């Protein structure tokens, strides 16, 4: 993989921040965008912009073809059976909320929803709300000390009363890669469906929804080189067919009568309102871009970076790293008693962008017994030199705060 050539595809990376070359280590929050994606969106607005599915005129047909073409690219990217199973939406949060609000209506008192303490807020709160609305119980699979789950605990938590299991593919804080295929099997043995939060999964590895046998898989475009505002909910047709839409209005209807209406077929019944056309086209371009490099190559590159980062960061006295040894391409840490905000500010002064805060995972922060952490996350355009800069920046942070803490 030629990282230098890849970096040239990302114009934003070629800049100085606070007098230093930008070192962007916040791709878990959002990834940067390659020229192919920027140009696809630009081209759409310059040449084809029109509303979709109303194609009497030529631009309308072109926009529709591009939009639906992007859906087919997503279908192939995740190996879904049919484009009917690929719903475009605003992102992972919207996808999970759709399932919680729609499939969640089947829940009754005594039913269980099973999640883990490592979930992002967007895979906790929709289930809290579904539980409150239906009288179902929310249960957590406990975490091991290193921030992983064991299949034994999964088996002990999921019961015959469990109707929904919702778990993240990759933890945005710990970097834990969950055995979702095995968990899906356990969920199915107990008659439950499984939703996988793929926000940190789909951008970084091959995702085959048929191999995982997950019932729902939600992810966001902006973390995988696509624009913000576009996401995908994959769902098995058998479930999506039975589910009621959660947004009603234009685009999603079949017949509208004065007192009753019927819905379009899948996937459009879940896409009320004018869809995110340019975003979907940008996502299609991002998928082409990632496929050209190869998801396996990207994963291998990230593995090398993660191992290198762990090795180098461990040499810093007083640095605590959270999460398991084997991990996705992110390292969450704290530097002694220096507050992560202060760490992030000192790093920013060196041109290094990291995330500091609770990472939308307050329950996990409490489990880790910290109020906040700093996080460096890597993607296909990062290099070992980026990590060397990070380590230098952290040593400077120590020096800067050393006399007060």
């Amino acid at each position, binding site marked *: 993989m030629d990282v230098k050539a890849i970096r040239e595809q990302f114009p934003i990376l070629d800049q100085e921040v606070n007098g230093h070359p930008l070192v962007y280590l916040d791709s878990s929050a959002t990834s940067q965008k390659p020229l192919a994606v920027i140009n696809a969106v630009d081209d759409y607005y310059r040449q084809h912009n029109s509303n979709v599915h109303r194609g009497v005129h030529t631009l309308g047909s072109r926009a529709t073809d591009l939009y639906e073409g992007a859906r087919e690219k997503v279908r192939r990217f995740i190996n879904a059976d049919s484009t009917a199973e690929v719903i475009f939406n605003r992102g992972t949060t919207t996808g999970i909320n759709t399932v919680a609000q729609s499939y969640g209506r089947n829940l009754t008192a005594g039913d269980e929803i099973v999640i883990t303490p490592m979930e992002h807020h967007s895979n906790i709160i929709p289930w809290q709300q579904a539980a409150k609305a239906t009288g179902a119980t929310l249960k957590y699979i406990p975490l091991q000390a290193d921030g992983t789950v064991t299949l034994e605990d999964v088996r002990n938590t999921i019961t015959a009363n469990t109707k929904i299991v919702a778990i993240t593919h990759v933890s945005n804080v710990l970097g834990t890669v969950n055995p979702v295929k095995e968990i899906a099997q356990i969920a199915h043995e107990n008659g439950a469906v499984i939703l996988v939060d793929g926000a940190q999964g789909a951008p970084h590895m091959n995702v085959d929804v048929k191999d995982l046998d997950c019932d729902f898989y939600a992810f966001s475009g902006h973390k995988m080189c696509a624009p913000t505002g576009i996401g995908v909910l994959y769902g098995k047709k058998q479930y999506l067919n039975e589910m009621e839409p959660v947004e009603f209005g234009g685009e999603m209807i079949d017949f509208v009568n004065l007192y009753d209406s019927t819905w379009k077929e899948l996937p459009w019944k879940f896409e009320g309102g004018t869809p995110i056309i340019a975003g979907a086209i940008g996502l299609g371009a991002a998928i082409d871009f990632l496929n050209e490099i190869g998801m396996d190559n990207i994963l291998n590159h990230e593995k090398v970076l993660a191992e290198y980062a762990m090795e180098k960061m461990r040499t810093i006295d007083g640095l605590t790293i959270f999460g398991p040894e084997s991990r996705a391409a992110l390292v969450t840490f704290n530097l002694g008693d220096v*507050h992560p905000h202060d760490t992030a500010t000192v790093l920013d*002064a060196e041109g290094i962008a990291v995330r*500091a805060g609770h990472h939308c995972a307050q329950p996990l922060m409490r489990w880790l017994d910290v*109020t906040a952490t700093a996080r460096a996350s890597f993607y296909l355009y990062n290099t070992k030199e980026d990590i060397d800069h990070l380590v230098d920046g952290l040593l400077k942070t120590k020096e800067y705060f050393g006399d*007060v803490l």
Partner: protein
Amino acid sequence: MSYNLDTLYRQVIMDHYKSPRNKGTIDGDALTIDMNNPTCGDRIQLQLLVDDDIVKEVKFDGEGCSISMSSASMMTQAIKGKKIEDALEMSKLFSEMMMGEDIDTGDLDLEDIEALQGVSKFPARIKCATLAWKAMEKGVHKE
């Protein structure tokens, strides 16, 4: 923009961070305000004892970065013994200072607070600095 960390982390700020003034809780009845910054997890508990429109006693407790905790420490130091209306006026001046405006303190003594002026150059950190002041305003308005 020149990005000099020393304009942010002035020595007096670090001193307040390391040795916060008025940190702790007030025994007995006091006006208690809990406030957090939901985007980052910083939180503060501020307690005020107001009598005859004068801040007789003020204490804070909490967890946060050097800027939020030192700002809380400086705020308590500045408003203790002051009239409520002066405390609110200081809060207004502080907000203006965070917007990068030149402020006229008049008769009010902001003490160490002016050391935080550099925060205005770091937009991502302004909310850290204003947390304690917001808590104070909320408490006073509740009163």
